[in-house]
Structures are given as structure tokens and as C-alpha cells.
């Protein structure tokens, strides 16, 4: 009897060891296979992309510095004109930032409504939660350029198509992030307000919004950073702003390098400036909440 149990214990140690060994081995095998698959995907993907590119990677690699060097040297030669050029393109920059700001504001308002309507416990019509979630998914999935190009056709060029396009995408993206925050709200203030006979919008405005405002503002600021980049890029495909000026400067024969340099400086400076400001403010918002 004792013998049997002893041998049983020895067996179980053995079997545990062997099964552990097998598990480790299988893990390593899977890990190795995954790594192999990843490497194969990367290498073959790189080769396909290289094949389908107009210029090859290895041919282009040593030219990579040529263009920046040309731009910099010409800008340096004409450095006296640079302040004038910067002043000339400043209004375009303001337009780009305005597009980003307005679309962030509109998108944040839209995202707020979408998130409230799509969050369990807060929704006005609980049965329609999946509908509002799908709406925000689809709005998030549409790249800005799609809406912008279609709207340029209908509305003509200018900042309005870019503004609408970015606002739609922002509403979808913020709707999702807001609703993740809104899920964790304390429902007691909402119930308290409901007991006084408050309407749905009053409950949301007075019961939920004060709780989530710091997080919402922080997310909206992050979006604003992203939207500045987006509005600059959309300018390149035909809406106004600094991106449009960049395309014109580039498309001018060989390219007006001094203009391009001025635009590069403006764009770089703006992005870094707003990144710094918004990240400082966001830190304050989220830390203030933790205290």
C-alpha cells in the first residue's frame, strides 16, 4: 500500500517534470515558429514593397540626404528672405490649425453624444446601444481622405471639406474613448438627479459630465495634436492650409526650396509646440484627478 503510494508520488514528480519540459519545449517551438513567420512576413513584405516601388531601396538609400541637403543649402543661401517667407505662409498655418481646432471641437461634441448614447447605464434608449456603437465604429473606420475628396467634389476646395472630414473621424474615435471612460462613472449622482425629475440631458450634463470632464478634455487634446497633422496632410490633397502651400512649392519645376524650407520650419515648429503644450496640460489634468 505504502509502496504503491510512494511510487505514485515519484511517478507524479517525474510526470510533472516531463510535462513541464514538454510544455516549455512546445512554447519554445511556438515562439520560434511565430518568430520565423514574422521574419518571413517582414522580409517578403519588404521585397514586394521594394519591387513595386518606382525606385529601389538600395539605390535610394544614399540619396536620402540629397533633398534635405538641397533644401537646407538653398534656404541657407537665401536666409535673409526666410522671415518674409515665414510671414507669408503664416496665414496658411493659421488655417491649418483652425481646421484642426474646429474639427476637434465639433468631433468632441459629437463623440460626447455618441458615447453617452452608446454606454450601458447612461443610454437614452438602451435598445439602440449597438446601433450607436456601430455608427461610431463606422465613423472611426472612414479615413479622413475619403470624405474630404468626395466633399471637395461637391463643395469645391477650401477648408470646409477638411473640417467636416476630420470632425467625422474625430467623433467616431472620441466616441469610443469617451465611452470607455463613461463606463466607469459613478451612477449615484445620475440616480440622485433622476429622483428630482431631471431629464436625460440634465442628468448627463450635471451628473456624468463633471465626473468625466478631465479625462475627456485630455483625450480631446490628444486628438487635437493628431488632427493638426491630419489637416496638414489633407491640405496636400486639395483642401487649403499649409499642406496645399507645400504642394505648390514642391510642384514648382524643381521645387522652390526656400519656400519649402519655410513651410517645413513652420509645420515642424507648430507640431512640436502643440505637442508640448498639450502634453503638459494633459499631465496636469490626469495627475490632478489622481490626487
Amino acid at each position: 500500500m505504502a509502496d504503491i503510494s510512494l511510487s505514485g508520488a515519484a511517478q507524479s514528480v517525474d510526470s510533472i517534470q516531463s510535462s513541464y519540459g514538454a510544455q516549455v519545449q512546445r512554447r519554445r517551438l511556438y515562439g520560434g515558429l511565430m518568430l520565423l513567420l514574422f521574419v518571413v512576413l517582414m522580409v517578403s513584405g519588404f521585397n514586394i514593397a521594394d519591387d513595386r516601388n518606382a525606385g529601389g531601396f538600395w539605390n535610394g538609400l544614399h540619396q536620402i540626404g540629397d533633398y534635405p541637403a538641397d533644401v537646407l543649402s538653398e534656404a541657407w543661401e537665401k536666409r535673409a528672405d526666410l522671415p518674409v517667407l515665414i510671414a507669408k505662409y503664416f496665414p496658411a498655418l493659421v488655417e491649418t490649425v483652425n481646421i484642426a481646432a474646429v474639427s476637434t471641437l465639433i468631433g468632441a461634441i459629437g463623440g460626447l453624444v455618441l458615447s453617452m448614447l452608446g454606454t450601458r447605464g447612461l443610454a437614452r434608449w438602451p435598445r439602440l446601444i449597438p446601433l450607436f456603437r456601430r455608427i461610431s465604429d463606422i465613423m472611426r473606420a472612414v479615413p479622413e481622405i475619403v470624405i474630404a475628396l468626395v466633399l471637395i467634389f461637391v463643395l469645391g476646395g477650401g477648408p470646409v471639406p477638411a473640417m467636416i472630414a476630420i470632425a467625422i473621424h474625430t467623433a467616431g474615435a472620441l466616441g469610443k474613448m469617451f465611452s470607455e471612460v463613461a463606463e466607469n462613472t459613478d451612477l449615484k449622482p445620475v440616480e440622485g438627479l433622476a429622483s428630482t425629475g431631471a431629464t436625460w440631458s440634465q442628468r448627463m450634463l450635471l451628473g456624468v459630465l463633471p465626473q468625466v470632464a478631465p479625462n475627456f478634455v485630455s483625450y480631446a487634446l490628444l486628438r487635437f495634436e493628431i488632427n493638426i497633422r491630419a489637416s496638414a496632410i489633407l491640405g496636400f490633397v486639395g483642401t487649403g492650409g499649409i499642406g496645399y502651400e507645400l504642394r505648390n512649392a514642391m510642384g514648382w519645376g524643381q521645387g522652390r526650396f526656400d519656400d519649402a524650407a519655410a513651410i517645413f520650419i513652420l509645420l515642424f515648429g507648430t507640431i512640436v509646440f502643440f505637442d508640448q503644450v498639450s502634453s503638459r496640460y494633459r499631465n496636469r489634468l490626469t495627475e490632478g484627478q489622481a490626487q
Partner: protein
Amino acid sequence: MTAIDLNTTKQHADRLFQRKRLIGFGIPAVIAVYFLYIFFAFDFAGLAQRANLENAVTLASDSWSHKVHVTRDNRSGETTYAVEGERKGRYPDGQRPEWVTGKDVISIDIGGDHIVRYLPQNRTEIDIPGMALIKVQAKGRKLTHNLPEDRPDWISVSDRRIGIVTPEGRITMTGARTEVFNYFPGWELFWFTLDSPYHGHSVASIMFGERLDPARSNINGALSDWWNNAMWRHKDVAWAIGETILMAFLGTMGAAIIALPLAFFAAKRFSPFMVVRATARRLFDFVRGVDALIWTVVLARAFGPGPLTGALAILITDTGTFGKIFSEALENVDQKQIEGVASTGAKPLQRYRFGVIPQVVPVLLAQILYFLESNTRSATIIGAITGGGIGLMLTQAIQTQKDWEEVAYYIILIIVMVMFMDWFSGWLRGKLIGRKN
């Protein structure tokens, strides 16, 4: 004493209320003023003039319908039939739609009892219910007609050109040609073009019916004809979507691979020298600040247009973003785990491998997968600039300003692609690091 106390408290509360009220009304007021400024800065008032509602109507109706052109060349007297008026959609010789009948007098029934007849000697008769029979004669460059002076506004007339727009279809006549556009719902020739033997056959008859093309088996032939469809270019579209996803994949993964070692230099815990740390951080800030747009422009000069340029632009920008996120994650690692590993006599490299990496991998993977999805969208946009992928096809289709059904098709594909990548990255995250987070 208490009275004074109460007074000051009350004053304090009053002031607090006043400030809240000021903020409560002030912020919306500031936003409203800003919107007002934007209203003028963006010239919303002039938008009404610039906006082209006709374009919107064409876009909306063309995106879900197609038209078949029946064109008579008034010089040669020849009549051709083509979907969307494109060469690729032309009916083969001897074939024509079944709503066209007659030999010498070609009679075109565009529906709703609207009938157009092409008569010999470049004469045209149009029979519209509730109207007298319209007769038009083309001679040289001029047109003669029997239209009354007080005609409805859907008929436009000059001596060179007559246009008639009805809900059933459109008729335009010039000296050189007479054209009828007949509208139908749906995307025509989506599966097979008219020159394919499989056009007009049902799925069942292709799958199980008799062999339609003696040279090939039905399924093979049908698949290859569909894949090489000249109108809808399914093969090119599939390649373009592949290119876009490839750009996002290469860019994201390449950025992660480059950013991970650099992030160690930027994290306070792993990089004792201030100079190294500051250099790494400034490098991240720089490549992030230059932005994908400028990188795309610069790289396109070196590598030419194509998917590789897009992938590299994403790679460089995201190296900065990843570097920042990764180094923050590395600064937040728990020291205890590293000490535990060190107490077993592990060397520095082993300490990183078993003490640090397991802690940060879930955070990094979550970020990488999130960026993979978001970069699919960026790759669409960058592709439109640098010339690769579905973004380029979309811009080209929009620029031609007539293939709106193709534009609608591409838009649907792009949305499906992004939603698929969203789902896929979520699924992969669940598989790799567990459902929660």
C-alpha cells in the same frame, strides 16, 4: 464671532458660485465666438455659391446605378452600345441590349413609354407621353427641330445641341452624334465584362451547367475572367489593398523593432548618462515633429513613388512615437522583479530578458497592435500622396469625376479593410496577451 465666520463663509461661497457661473457661461460663449470667427474665416457664406448640388446628385445616383449609352455617329451612321460609354464596356459586334429593336429604324425603349427612334438620314424621333412627338434632324453641325417655344425646363435647346433629361433616361443630340443614356440600378459588369462568355449566366449554370468556353473548365474560366475584369479591375484592387496593408505592417513593425532598443537609451532607469538620454529623447521628438507628411515628401524624392516610400514614412514617424511610449513603459517597470532575477546570479542581459521584457511586452504589444490598425488608415492617406495602394486608386477614380460607382466600391472596400484590421488587431491582442487590456 460665528456671525462673522458665517459671513465670510457665505461670501466665499458666493464668490465660488460666481466663478462657476462665469466658467459655465464663459466657456460656451468663447466657443460660440470662435465658431463665429470660423464662420467668416472659412467663408461659409460663399460656400453656397461654390457648392455644386448637381455634382452631389450625380454622385449619389451614379454610385448605385449605371447607364448604358446608345450612340449614333451621325457621320458614319453607325450605332454603338456601351455600358457607361466605355470602350471596355462595349457590346460585341452583332449584340445589343434587348430594349433596342429594329434594323433600319432603331427603336430604343428607355422605359415608362419613352421611346427614341433613330431614323435614317440622321433623323431622330422622341416619343414622350404627354408631349407631341419630337422630331430632330441633324445636318452638318446644326440641328433643326419641331420643339415649341414654351417648353419645359428639362429640355434645353440651342441650334447646336439639344438635351432632354427625363426620370427614365437622358437624350443629347448634337450635329456629330445622337446619344441616349438609359439608367439601371446596380453595378453593371461587376462580375464579367460583355466579351466574357460567362456574362449573363447564373452562378448555378456556371458551376453545374454545360461548358461555356470549350478551352477552359467553367470554374477556372469564370474565376480568371472575373479576376481580370477590365472594368472593375479586381486584380489591381486586391493588389492595392494588399499594398496598403503591407505599408501599415512594414511601417509599424519596423518602427517597433527600431524603437525598442532606442527606448532603453531614453529611459532613466536603464540609461545613467544624461547626455545619452537627452539625445535619444530629442531624436524621438524630432522624427515625430517632422511628421509623416514631410517624411513622405522627402522620401519620395529618394525612393520614388510606391509602397516602400509610404512604409518608410510610417516607419520613421512611428519610431518617434513608439520610442516615447516604450521609454515611458520602461520607466514604469517594477524593480522587484529585476532584483529577484538578479539574486539568482543573472547577468545584465539575462536580467533584461527575464526581469524587464516580460513586464513591458503586454504594454508594447497592445500599443503596436493599436498602431497597426490606425496606420492602415494613415497608409491610405499616404498612398494618395506617394502613389501606392488603394488610396491612389481612390484619388484617381475621384479625379476622373465619372466613375462614381467605382469610387463607392473603393470607399466600401476601404471601410471594410479598416474594420477588418481593427477586428484583427483586437483578436491578435486577445490571443497574445489576454482579453482584458
